[in-house]
């Protein structure tokens, strides 16, 4: 185990790739490795990029990587795609747009599937961010489709969250999952060469104007940018805004690394405890067959589900009930 942590810190690609797999697969051994890696984290700047399918997130990320590399920065990319709820399988196609960076040792790209177990995505993505951070990457770009609470939580664990829309989404912007719009630090209208870009810009501006009070007293007001990622237009400006936001955070938080602000730590630790409890209790209950027996009993009408739940859970959490 020690060896794996050391290899990760030394930047060993295979060790990093395998560790992320173990995190994804929920191997309990990874906890010890992550504990050892944690002191090596806190260096990377994490940017979340989210938006509906087809808005051009991967292309945008690809261009961002190219520019960051020109500045000599190293980059890690985590591209999250949905798991099919029917088969449990997934097609992870984000690499198609980023393959030109695959031979660049300053770039590490990893595709991840949402998998869909309780809070699992958030947990495993956060851990994967820590791994890439410990590996020494300067920037970590996390790309997700902005649907589902888990994915909202993922982008929230970034320093800067970029929300990508395209022209024509217009009023539909309001339909973007509530909670994710508020999480946006920067808005990008990609494919801005298309008709309706200005209308979308006006809609977004109006939306922010309605919240004007929030931004008074020098608070960060999310800028709105137009990009044409395929033609590499507006990408440098986007990186400039990210840099400005970074400076803003650094000023607002003093010397603290923003991702480790108290509220973030509280949120992450809360999730971690919750997931650990679920995992420990539920794993036991399923392994012993208690859970399936309870299901049968409820189905057969022998017991109501509320009592069944009590019977399953209460004996496991005895110390908390005293």
């Amino acid at each position, binding site marked *: 185990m020690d060896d794996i942590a050391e290899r990760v810190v030394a930047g060993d690609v295979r060790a990093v790739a395998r560790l992320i797999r173990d995190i994804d697969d929920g191997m309990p051994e990874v906890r010890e490795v992550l504990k050892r890696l944690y002191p090596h984290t806190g260096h990377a700047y994490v940017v979340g990029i989210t938006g509906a399918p087809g808005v051009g997130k991967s292309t945008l990320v690809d261009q961002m990587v190219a520019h960051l590399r020109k500045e000599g920065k190293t980059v890690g990319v985590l591209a999250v795609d949905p798991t099919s709820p029917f088969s449990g399988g997934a097609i992870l196609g984000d690499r198609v747009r980023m*393959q030109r960076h695959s031979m660049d040792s300053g770039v590490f790209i990893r595709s991840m599937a949402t998998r869909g177990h309780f809070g699992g995505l958030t947990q495993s993505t956060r851990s994967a961010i820590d791994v890439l951070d410990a590996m020494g990457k300067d920037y970590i770009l996390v790309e997700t489709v902005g649907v589902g609470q888990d994915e909202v939580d993922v982008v929230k664990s970034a320093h800067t969250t970029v929300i990508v829309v395209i022209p024509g989404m217009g009023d539909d912007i309001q339909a973007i999952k509530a909670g994710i719009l508020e999480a946006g630090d920067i808005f990008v209208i990609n494919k801005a060469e298309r008709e309706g870009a200005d209308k979308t810009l006006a809609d977004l501006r109006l939306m922010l104007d309605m919240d004007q009070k929030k931004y008074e007293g020098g608070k960060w007001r999310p800028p709105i940018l137009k990009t044409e990622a395929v033609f590499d237009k507006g990408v440098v400006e986007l990186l400039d805004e990210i840099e400005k936001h970074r400076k803003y955070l650094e000023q607002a938080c003093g010397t603290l690394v923003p991702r480790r602000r108290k509220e973030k730590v509280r949120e992450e630790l809360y999730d971690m405890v919750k997931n650990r409890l679920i995992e420990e209790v539920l794993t036991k209950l399923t392994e012993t067959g208690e859970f399936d027996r309870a299901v049968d009993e409820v189905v057969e009408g022998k017991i109501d589900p509320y009592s069944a739940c009590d019977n399953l859970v209460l004996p496991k959490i005895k110390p908390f009930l005293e």
Partner: protein
Amino acid sequence: MARERKIRVMVAKPGLDGHDRGARIIARAYRDAGFEVVYTGLHQTPEEIVEAAIQEDVDMIGLSSLAGAHRYLFPRVVELLREKGADDIVVCGGGIIPDEDIPKLKEAGIKEVFTPGSSLEEIVDWVKENVKPRER
């Protein structure tokens, strides 16, 4: 965190041929079988494929070729995996591949070769039987 090893595979198209319909269909069949499928798109060099496979920690690479360069490209992928110490990754191939080439490819380390007669079921079942997610 569910302790569950999932099969991860990569579907890649080495070389210059621009026909990826077949590769996409295979990717879908793999997904429907419950695998996580990393798709890398067209025009990949063997070097790019191997690097991507290592970063993605896949258990298998499926190579597709319809343009006749498989005799160089497929073995080159196996060779590079070996050089990188990643030869635990299984390689199979498919596409328009003349029968007489198949023994040579297998000799070079391609575990199986599928040709236009192969059914999707057969291709998926082969993975289930021959590719195990790594233990450690």
